[in-house]
């Protein structure tokens, strides 16, 4: 409305004529817009396009990997971006929650690749059958073109991998995430319904389990994603290329629970008879400390190396690379 007169039409225009409060707000906004237009004024730049193109073409870094597509930066793939971000964020939250049970803190000197499939990540979404997940602070995910840009968003410098494992593409994309806080609330009713759907009944609830809340804070985080990413083919997300190696760094996450301990919550969910093998495997996989490399300092690093997904079958096996990638 402020800089588009055509937007001031119909019911909005009639309301505006008779509402002093909205008139005042519009005036404030118009003043802001005019002031900012003046503040950001800059003289036009005269450019020599031919000379600039010659410089760009002769830059060694410009030798192209043409044809490569970054699915996460393509505006048209926004739903997939959100789904991808959500699964990564859920994985990060579960890593945080269940890693609290393991007190093994080691220095992040090496990266141990562990395969994770699309099916693994899809399975985690089944947790919503047993309660509700709400964000009290939504994570903002951003794909960056440079390490500096990712650092500016997250406040953390992306880690450097001195030597990539054999077979891992050197194509790197940077990603940054702001702080996120999520609350998982276990619901006996939802869990009971989920179990009943599978012909099972809910095991006796430990005291305080119903309504128990797990609050998890992660991030900010920054990561390098190696691999030639590819969008899913239509709805068949298994056809997407997952990253070959993800190296991430995050401020030490925290998890707190009410009514029951984090370990009690994990054990109870894993004990449910109707829980799918995929979800059980995913939770166990995420909770496996051998898949994580944590530092004891303020900033922690963890890595996952998802294999290229070619089927819906969950991967429960662990393949430890004989040639871990040293961190610079």
């Amino acid at each position, binding site marked *: 409305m402020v800089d*588009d007169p055509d937007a001031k039409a119909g019911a909005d225009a009639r309301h505006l004529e008779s509402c002093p409060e909205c008139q005042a707000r519009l005036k404030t906004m118009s003043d802001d817009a005019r002031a*900012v237009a003046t*503040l*950001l004024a800059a003289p036009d730049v005269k*450019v020599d396009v031919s000379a*600039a193109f010659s410089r*760009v073409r002769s830059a060694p870094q410009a030798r192209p990997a043409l044809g490569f597509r*970054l699915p996460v930066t393509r505006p048209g793939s926004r739903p997939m971006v959100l789904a991808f971000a959500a699964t990564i964020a859920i994985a990060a939250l579960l890593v945080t929650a269940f890693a609290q049970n393991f007190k093994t803190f080691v220095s992040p000197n090496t990266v141990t690749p562990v395969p994770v499939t699309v099916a693994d990540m899809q399975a985690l979404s089944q947790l919503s059958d047993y309660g509700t997940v709400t964000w009290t602070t939504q994570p903002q995910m951003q794909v960056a073109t440079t390490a500096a840009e990712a650092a*500016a968003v997250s406040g953390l410098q992306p880690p450097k991998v001195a030597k990539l494992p054999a077979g891992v593409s050197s194509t790197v994309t940077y990603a940054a995430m702001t702080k996120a806080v999520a609350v998982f609330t276990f619901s006996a009713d939802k869990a009971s319904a989920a179990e009943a759907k599978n012909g099972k009944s809910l095991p006796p609830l430990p005291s305080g389990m119903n309504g128990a809340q797990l609050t998890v804070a992660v991030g900010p985080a920054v990561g390098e994603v190696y691999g030639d990413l590819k969008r899913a083919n239509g709805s068949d997300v298994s056809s997407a290329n997952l990253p070959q190696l993800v190296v991430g760094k995050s401020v030490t996450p925290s998890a707190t629970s009410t009514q029951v301990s984090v370990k009690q919550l994990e054990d109870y969910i894993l004990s449910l008879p109707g829980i799918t093998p995929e979800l059980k495997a995913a939770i166990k996989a995420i909770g496996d400390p051998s898949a994580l490399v944590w530092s004891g300092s303020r900033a922690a690093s963890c890595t996952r190396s998802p294999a290229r997904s070619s089927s819906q079958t969950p991967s429960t096996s662990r393949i430890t690379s004989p040639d871990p990638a040293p961190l610079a």
Partner: protein
Amino acid sequence: MNVQAHRVSAVSSDDEAFEALFAAEYARVVGIANRVLTDPAEAEDVAQEVFIDFHRLHSARAQYAPAWLHRAAAHAALNRLRGAKRRQRRELAQAPDEDDRTLDPQKQLELNEDRRQVRQALARLAPKPAAVLVLRASGLSYAEVAQALGVGIGQVGTLLRRAEAALRKEVTSGTSN
């Protein structure tokens, strides 16, 4: 598909497509960076880095190419602005441009000081509000801003109004300190 995209997709090879994209978008990408940096030479550096990054990873035939370039230019320039060392160097070296030289020295000093304070305020904003201001001030339409930032076109007006209020507040607090 817009006219530029047609032009890019009509050419035969990837190299030709990139050259066509460069010719179509370079001045605009420089303009976005210069809106942030008010330093034409540094703005051209940023623009060239953005094109190099794009060329390394993407096909110039991609429909999203202009939106990607606009967004990357805004973010890259804002990141430079936030770099303390570079900012100090730029402020010291900032020479008056051709139009500014017609001003008397006192007005020139005031203009430079205003620009410095505005850019410092811009650097303190969160990335998204800063980018939406820069892109709109660089002449991008609401639709182009929406594409560049990956938001719905209906959100652009709201984002802009909030960002404008935030920038004015930052500028005011900066000058009152």
